[in-house]
């Protein structure tokens, strides 16, 4: 209980001027996450859609994306720290490199795996390239794209703690400070917060997925069952197998 007590102290939530509390760290953490995801989406969505649509360069890009995934983020951060110094840029680049592969894989495989007979029908109806992409391929790829977003989001939320290593904020502060001060309630409280944030964010995206994806693409079984277990499984692990 003493460990959890740290979490429920209003003092810890509010913090002070020189020692910001949980609320502010949470906002910072979400800020890093949102910024990372935005940049990664801007890179990965058009690239993945283009590769999936044209079928050109798919193997190469997926290969590179999978290689990028294998990079240890902490090592990358140290390298970037040496290259660009302190500040947001280093961790941001590291996080974007982490977030791009699942987004790219999700978008690419989503678009590339649309049933060819549907694409054939779309062209045969007289749709031009962009119409095929936006009216047929992307809507049908949406479940896999959102799967990629969920996967990226989970990884970015949990890894954004590294920002604290280079003197920035976010929930990583509590883990790092707790460790260095041997303040275990603070460290555990910080870890729990990161985990909870990831779960809540994934649930929210799962809800969004149901709103955005056409009912024609949602399987009846998935609609009937309680979504929670499926959400976490679908979010984190599946697209790795698909991209491989």
């Amino acid at each position: 209980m003493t460990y959890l007590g740290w979490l429920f102290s209003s003092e810890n939530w509010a913090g002070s001027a020189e020692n910001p509390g949980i609320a502010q760290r949470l906002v910072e953490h979400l800020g890093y996450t949102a910024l990372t995801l935005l940049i990664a989406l801007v890179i990965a969505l058009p690239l993945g859609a283009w590769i999936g649509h044209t079928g050109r360069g798919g193997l190469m890009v997926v290969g590179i994306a999978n290689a990028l995934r294998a990079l240890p983020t902490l090592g990358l951060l140290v390298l970037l720290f040496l290259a660009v110094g302190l500040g947001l840029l280093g961790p941001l680049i590291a996080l974007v490199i982490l977030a791009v592969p699942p987004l790219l894989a999700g978008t690419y495989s989503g678009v590339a795996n649309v049933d060819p007979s549907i694409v054939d029908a779309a062209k045969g109806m007289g749709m031009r390239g962009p119409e095929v992409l936006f009216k047929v391929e992307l809507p049908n790829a949406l479940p896999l794209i959102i799967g990629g977003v969920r996967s990226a989001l989970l990884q970015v939320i949990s890894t954004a703690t590294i920002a604290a290593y280079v003197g920035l904020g976010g929930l990583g502060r509590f883990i790092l400070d707790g460790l260095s001060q041997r303040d275990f309630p603070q460290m555990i409280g910080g870890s729990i917060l990161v985990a909870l944030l990831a779960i809540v964010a994934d649930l929210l995206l799962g809800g969004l997925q149901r709103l955005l994806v056409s009912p024609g693409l949602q399987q009846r079984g998935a609609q009937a069952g309680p979504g929670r277990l499926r959400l976490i499984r679908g979010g984190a692990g599946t697209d790795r197998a698909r991209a491989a």
Partner: protein
Amino acid sequence: MIEFRGVTKRFPDGTVAVHELDLVAEQGRITVFVGPSGCGKTTSVRMINRMIEPTSGELRVDGRDVLAGDPADLRRGIGYVIQQAGLFPHRTIVDNIATVPVLLGRGRREGRSRAMELMETVGLDPSMARRYPNQLSGGQQQRVGVARALAADPPVLLMDEPFSAVDPVVRENLQDELLRLQSELGKTIVFVTHDIDEAIKLGDKVAVFRVGGTLAQYDEPGVLLSRPVDEFVDTFVGRDRGYRGLGFLSSDTIPIGELPTVGLGDPVPEQGWHAVLDGERRPLGWIDGGHRPGGATVSEGDVVPGGSLYPVGSGSLRGALDAALSSPSGRGVAVDADGRVAGSISADDVLTALPDARRHDPAA
């Protein structure tokens, strides 16, 4: 009208899919392309809407060179139905059907109201409009595919093995429906199939392709059955082509004979086969007379199921012969347009009428 003039398709790897094809698909008619796999029938039809570009030759749709304009514009003016229907799974039925009108900029509302009309035309319940393709059976999906192709009212309809993925009963249903639709719409239809029976049933003219993309024979189905040009067509058309060819000969000259009949509840006849009729004089089946203790009456349990019925005035020799052969008594039941018994026919009558029917039919 669709004209192929010396059209050849050679793929980059050197295979010639279609070789010097000369063919005219007539206005308002169903032309069927049929042949074994690898004969270029699908390639040929896909060149009409430029889903595949011809390597050489000239291809015109209603006098217009298909290679002249923009392919997307061309395709919006040509209905296209493919195997498995190819419906958009993320769109409702009504929005699937409205695809081309919306592409043509006619607005979603107009497109949807047109789609609702078409659902009725192709025999779909309007309550399905808001459903998604995965909630429909294969046959229903294929009807949606046809409705979608008709939505912008194109003069030309291309159908690429549209019914090959549904079960035989549904397929026959869809074929009948297509013939009914065509009698109302009069589109220029090019229909691809590998099934010769489907080709013969649907085609006003049938083009038989052979492997290598050349045209083996292009004729009316009756001619194809009675006078195949060579061994390939003969084999492809199938073994009992003589029998099937009867389907294209008029049976108007067959004499309609007497038919001994009996009603339900009447005394069982003393001997011989009698047709059992209901109160409206419609046939229920047959009963073999005699062999019963005195005083028995005809009950439903005694009725032996009859064979196919022969419609007087609209039947073919094939239908007449089948009625006779499938009847337990050896005499086929002839019915009028209302389904009431008109008399009987025998297999001998059919064979006697055959030479006459052949003389009157230019195809045979």
